[in-house]
């Protein structure tokens, strides 16, 4: 018997009822959201249940949604069933002011570095993590670079021409002003009246 999204969903709903929300299947991958206090319980259930058997944490990362007030940060778990080759995704949302989420390191040893990375880039505070320090960025970094309020570009650059990098400049790339300008010069445009 091969495991399907329907069976997984049914098992989860039997166990957790309507605490799990936002059921979706983008590109055939079962996705749902859980309250953040429940993240370990859901992971543990998916891990332990004989039918579900999700024993491999394939990926763990965060997403910053600045517009979702009170739940700006989403922590996303991708968990995989190696026996039936099925992967599902599940999210917990947390307030950016208090980004505490329980650490999954006790369940999955592989979560250690992934949680450190997520902390490094998004500042999610994984409660119970044994060594929650930066892993990829320099230790001196004093912000979380993947949060949307921080610009991607390096702020220490001194000799770069904004115009050559597709932003600002006299043509106003990337600003409201940019919309009024045509990037094709007038004399190079196709003359539509001459077209047959």
């Amino acid at each position, binding site marked *: 018997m091969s495991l399907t999204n329907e069976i997984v969903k049914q098992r989860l709903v039997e166990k957790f009822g309507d605490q799990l929300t936002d059921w979706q299947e983008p590109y055939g991958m079962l996705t749902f959201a859980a309250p953040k206090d429940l993240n370990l319980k859901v992971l543990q259930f998916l891990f332990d249940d004989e039918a579900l058997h999700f024993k491999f944490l394939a990926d763990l990362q965060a997403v910053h949604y600045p517009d979702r007030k009170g739940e700006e940060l989403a922590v996303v778990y991708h968990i995989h069933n190696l026996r039936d080759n099925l992967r599902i995704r599940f999210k917990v949302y947390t307030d950016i002011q208090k980004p505490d989420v329980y650490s999954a390191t006790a369940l999955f040893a592989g979560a250690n570095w992934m949680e450190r990375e997520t902390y490094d880039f998004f500042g999610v505070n994984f409660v119970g993590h044994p060594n929650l320090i930066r892993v990829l*960025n320099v230790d001196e970094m004093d912000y979380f670079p993947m949060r949307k309020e921080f610009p991607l570009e390096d702020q220490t650059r*001194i*000799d770069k021409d904004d115009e050559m990098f597709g932003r600002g400049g006299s043509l106003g790339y990337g600003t409201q002003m940019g919309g009024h300008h045509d990037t094709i010069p007038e004399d190079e445009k196709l003359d539509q009246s001459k077209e047959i």
Partner: protein
Amino acid sequence: MRPVQYNPKIKTVEAPASFMGEGFMATNFDKVIGLARKNSIWPLPFATSCCGIEFMATMASHYDLARFGSERVGFSPRQCDLLMVMGTISKKMGPVLRQVYLQMAEPRWVLSVGACACSGGIFDTYSVLQGIDQIIPVDVYVPGCPPRPEAILDGFMKIQELVGKESLRRRTGDQYKALMTEYGIQ
């Protein structure tokens, strides 16, 4: 007759301008030492990405960096004269690069190869150093993304020119000391 061919057109380096007589030759140290140094540069490749691949081509038989007296590519900074930085240097790599530079003995030169090493290149992002000249002094910049081996050789020849013409007093001079202080070295 043995089928051996000799190249009768081997070029050797010109002797420096000198005062010569029977059994002696007098010239100044600057020229002799410059000549010796510039034709026996030991490069230390610090290759982190695609420019490093171009360097491998430069070093290999087709382009042959050895023609310029750099047969011996060293991998210990303490033995080398020229630090060739090729590739993107992330901010986390910065202190490592600086450490390698500090381990080199004077006189030392730095060749920055490729857009990333020179200015950060396309990696205009929070994690990448915007040019290695923010942490160590650079003698010659080779632009390109990545530069062709010819360009690297051209940069290398510019270094040779600098090495050959350098005054023996430069490294103890005030200007040089000021430059080092600017980078927080010594």
